[in-house]
């Protein structure tokens, strides 16, 4: 078995204690939520924190609640299984419920948390390997090296954003609550990710993601998530697609959104999707709606070109972009989903 490198374990009981520890340790620290991303990465020596701050004893970071304004607030330490099984989330935020239910496999969803998934490190076939393997390769841009093996001559890391819940949260206009020992800030999730595979999150080393807040969805909100992967469980996405359709009382699309992940370092919103779909009426004029959906799928195909950063056939992933874009939008319109092969 691969060994976990040694570190000092801190188990604060309160949020202020956790933030104080984080403030002291700074970049030397790693935060442990469910550990399903951090621990394998530590075993692969992708991270060598001297201090690990475990949040399991900190009260107040779990739970799903509806705020007075109708927003839904989910504690960062809420297990993915709980998000997936919540009747409230399933009813109000179907894309998020579906995405959470498709993260990894059942055991990992019991351990893994929503916050952990949002902060999931980027992934690449040349990165998520043992130190021996990476040393044999000569390392790479993301860790310990200077070259990219995905894009010849590339100077920017293109390791893939791989969190299933992120595209769903982006379509939902989620806001991240980020705490530091001296302040708390609210950050729209759209502004949180950058196209840099080395670190694709705008989170200071002394900050902690504490809560995810999703504004009250429209009355006619519909959403769905599509996940492409080889197996019916366990695997990270080879492509993740979140769709949002807000219908008026008359059944007309008033707002729409389509966000894809597992392409490169940041999730990608399909430009023009909302315009193409707005005004169509899936229930009343399905043919017209489908035409709009096909137009959006074509936009997605043009805008989203998966790279050979993840294992397997990236050309096939590219071919699946319009297919999953279309199927996920149709599923959302029908109040169905997820789009998943099993």
């Amino acid at each position, binding site marked *: 078995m691969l060994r976990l490198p040694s570190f000092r374990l801190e188990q604060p009981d309160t949020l202020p204690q956790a933030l104080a520890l984080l403030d002291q340790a700074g970049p030397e620290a790693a935060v442990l939520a469910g550990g399903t991303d951090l621990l394998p990465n530590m075993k692969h020596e992708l991270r060598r924190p001297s201090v690990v701050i475990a949040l399991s004893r900190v009260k107040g970071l779990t739970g799903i609640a509806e705020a007075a304004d109708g927003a839904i607030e989910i504690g960062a330490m809420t297990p993915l299984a709980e998000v997936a099984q919540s009747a409230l989330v399933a009813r109000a935020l179907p894309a998020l419920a579906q995405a959470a239910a498709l993260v990894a*496999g059942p055991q990992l969803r019991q351990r893994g948390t929503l916050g952990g998934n949002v902060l999931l490190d980027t992934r690449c076939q040349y990165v*998520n*390997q043992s130190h021996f*393997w990476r040393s044999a390769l000569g390392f790479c841009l993301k860790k310990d090296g200077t070259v990219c093996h995905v894009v010849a001559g590339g100077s920017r890391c293109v390791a893939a954003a791989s969190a299933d819940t992120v595209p769903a949260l982006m379509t939902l206009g989620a806001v991240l609550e980020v705490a530091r020992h001296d302040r708390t800030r609210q950050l729209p999730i759209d502004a949180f990710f950058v196209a840099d595979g080395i670190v694709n999150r705008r989170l200071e080393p002394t900050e902690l993601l504490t809560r995810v807040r999703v504004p009250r969805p429209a009355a006619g909100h519909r959403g769905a998530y599509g996940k492409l992967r080889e197996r019916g*469980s366990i695997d990270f996405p080879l492509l993740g697609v979140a769709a949002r359709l807000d219908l008026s009382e008359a059944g007309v699309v008033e707002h729409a959104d389509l966000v894809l992940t597992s392409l490169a370092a940041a999730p990608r919103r399909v430009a023009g999707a909302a315009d193409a779909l707005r005004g169509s009426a899936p229930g009343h004029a399905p043919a017209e709606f489908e035409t709009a959906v096909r137009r959006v799928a074509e936009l997605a195909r043009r805008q989203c070109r998966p790279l050979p950063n993840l294992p397997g056939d990236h*050309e096939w992933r590219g*071919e699946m972009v319009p297919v999953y874009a279309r199927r996920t939008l149709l599923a959302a319109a029908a109040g169905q989903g997820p789009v998943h*092969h*099993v």
Partner: protein
Amino acid sequence: MGARDRHGIDPPWGEFRHVGQGSTKIDGLAKATGAALYADDLSLPLMLHAKTLRSPHPHARLRAIDSGAALALPGVHAVITGRDLPVRYGILPWSQDETALAVDKVRFVGDPVAAVAAVDEDTANEALKRIRVDYELLHPFLDPRESLARGDPPIHEDRKEGNVSKKVELAFGDVDSAFAGAAVVIEGDYDFHGTTHAAIEPHCVLARYGPDGVLTLWSSTQITHYVHRALSRVLGLPPHRIRVIQPCLGGAFGGKSDPFSLEFCASLLAIRTARPVKMLYTREEVFYAHRGRHPMQMRYRTAAGPDGRLAAVDARILIDGGAYSSYGLVTTYYSGQLLTGPYHFPAYRFESTRVFTNKPPCGPKRGHGSVQPRFAFEVQLDRLAERLGLDPFELRRRNLLGADATTVNGQRVTSNGFARCLERVEEASGWRQRRGRLPRGRGLGMAGSMYISGTNYPIYPNPMPQSGIQLKLDRSGLVTVFSGGNDIGQGTNTIVRCLVAEELGLQLEQVRVVAADTDLCPVDLGAYSSRGTFMIGNAVLDACRKLRGTLVSAVAESWGVDPRRVRFVDGAVVDLEDPGRSLPTADAFQLAEARFDTLGATGSYNTPSLGGDYRGGTIGASPAYSFTAHVVEVTVDEETGRITCERAWIAHDCGRALNPVLVAGQMEGSAYMGLAEALVEEHEVNRFGLHRGPSLLDYRLPTSVDTPELHSLIVESLDPEGPYGAKEAGEGPLHPAIPALSNAVFDAVGIRLQHLPFTPGKVLKALRAAAAERRPAVAAVSGT
């Protein structure tokens, strides 16, 4: 084969009490409760932990190794390199090209270079980082075609044939005339990618060198006897000072049937340090140890008459062996020799060439050497049926080899239930009503196969039995069986217990099995070639039958009755003519011990002489063959290219099913493995010479939600030489899975998949190519 190697198919006491019952596995509860002790569960006082330094280069010369800094690290007890273990070994005496640690060269990324023993794993790992190795890089061979074309630089410098590991050319009958006169010739190229075993338990050993000068090695091996021999050879210790024990084993599938580096390294480190040494591979190291299924590039030509009768088969196969020979000589023969049933064809030629490449060494995996050709051949047959407008079942029925036959390459086939296997899957799958009538995107495919129940060819030539058993009868009524056989999860020990209880009329709990310990047990050659049930089973019957007479006569004498009236049944002895008279078995054992002597017996099995009279003619010659037929049902999503296997029907002729639950388990496990290899598993080395993803995340094994409904249909053609008529069930049932799947895809969407694995991207390309072919005129117009 003497008379004592044939025991007949009948129950020993009138009717079977245990055979056919499907009793729980002998170690089932221990495994389910966590009480079972695997190699890594073992621990000894003062035990050190050892780790291996591995080559980061696919091909390089070793200039120098400096381990001074590693040895200086506190907690490090010993560092060894290739100089400490220079003696070559290899599972086959003719191709011993491995050393425990690289001596002058490294031949793949992951090749072992040095080993360290330290107080704990972290210290050992830290020491590895301090070992400095100076490499001179050499050109890496990653493509077998390149290895075939050029032998420079040679991967093994003492080989005369460049980078060719083994070449076999055999021909039977007049192949060229048969092709010249054939009504139909089907030709095709087929690729088998690499796959590995992925047993859940990684390789692990614990070595102890006692003050008495005896080395004890607990190893997760499926071949204790060969490990015993190899240790003696490499360590220079006489074999009587070595004891090898296989603890409970967490799966092997052929991946633990070579001697491995860690067995030698831990042993030498234990000798050097005078402390017990454990070495456990990481999952990544298991991928480097490999010995998985060989990639093969195959070209087949199949000739037939207008009625579909096969006239000739001609095959050319290029085998990518990886860095070492392992079982490669046998693989090369098997790739041709095992194809000659369950169909008769009068002329056959094959040319198989195995080459070395700078990749983890390939070896035997469940269905050794014959899964790849079977895939190609059964797709060829499906294409032939298509060409002739014949139902695929009908085509196969026109070519049945039948029972008591001799194959074109001179193999003796005795019992043969293949025709019944065809009937069972045809009926169970609703083939006649459904095939060709399902909506587009859904389809059924079928295939058949034949496999060996052990071979008469021991890995090192010797006239001794292949399998030995020793029985010890206790006054308590307990029988202890000492079996050399390796129970690797397939249930050998469960079968041994069942047969002893049957023969001596005992309850199962009155039989205990001690197995795979070279100090305690007679030699059995190991868990490979599907030989266990057949050979160990016959040895058990041999041993039991030597004791039965003794026991019966002691009781008969005591009762003053004719011995024919004495029957042992369910832990008691009864008088068939006086229902009131009976004894517990323990009393019978005591009577016999008092009358005769301490009670025990040995038994053994050896094969008859078999095989064709030509070089290589004994390779693949088996005392009995199993037969299998599959029907696979698939759905193909033509937009994503994804194939979903919905259901599979597996009919397998295993002779008498001694334990039908174990047989069905083997059938389901085999079909699962074959379908997984077809659809998701891929042992691939990338352009840098690195394994693409040596982990169970990136090496995809289907999960429960990816696994189809599997229907096991047991066919029992009682074999005249098997124990009570039993044959193998562990490997044969895998073979048809892959071609049946390919044939089902053809039925579903009209494309032929001939290049594994059947990834969705390939399916889409094939669908587009087929669509373009259907619209040639349109394509021509749009092309202008």
